[in-house]
């Protein structure tokens, strides 16, 4: 399956784009998605365990993703 991942701020800068498609086996979890992302060129700046949101909610690393989900990698937040 192909998952489209939203990128923001420093992570978007690191990968040079605002979103990226990642190919994953069916039933893959957030952790698998992060591992696949980190193997991409320019993605060395991503931490091993970044915050990840699925459908606008923070998700655990073992949460399963599906192509219908809106998935986002969340850099350390700095509002205020």
């Amino acid at each position, binding site marked *: 399956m192909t998952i489209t991942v939203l990128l923001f701020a*420093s992570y978007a800068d690191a990968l040079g784009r605002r979103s990226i498609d990642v190919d994953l086996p069916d039933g893959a979890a957030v952790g698998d998605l992060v591992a696949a992302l980190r193997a991409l060129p320019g993605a060395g700046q991503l931490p091993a365990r970044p915050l990840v949101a699925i459908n606008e909610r923070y998700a655990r690393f073992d949460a399963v993703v599906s192509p219908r989900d809106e998935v986002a990698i969340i*850099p350390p937040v*700095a509002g205020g």
Partner: protein
Amino acid sequence: MIRAAISRDPIDVPALLAEVTSEGCGALSLFVGTVRDSNDGRSVTGMEYTAYEPMAVREMHVILDEAARAHDVERLVLVHRLGALALGEVSVAIVAAHAHRAQAMDATRFVIEELKRRVPIWKREHYADGTREWVDPTGAHAVSEVP
């Protein structure tokens, strides 16, 4: 009257005060964050705010609901600015009104602390030397692991 919003226009703080004011409330608490001219010893010339907007607004609402329940507050507004801000401009404003002061002040403080902890908003500082950098309050560099 509970409201969370993101704004690309300047935040009108007096209008927010008027919005929560009520004759049933004897106490009004406001917190305002503004762009500061220095950070960690570096001279700052401006700030750029960006967000994962739908999630940010969603989390802001969740925080206000938690604050309302925890502190029994019914009049609470949170507005966060996005875009390019000059020094001194308001980046965030929180207003709470209540019959009594403790609840108004507690609610305001809860909201700013939680906003900084979990709302997906980011800021990039522009420095006097022409460089710019995303602010990372975790103290980690982009190459380090998030704790």
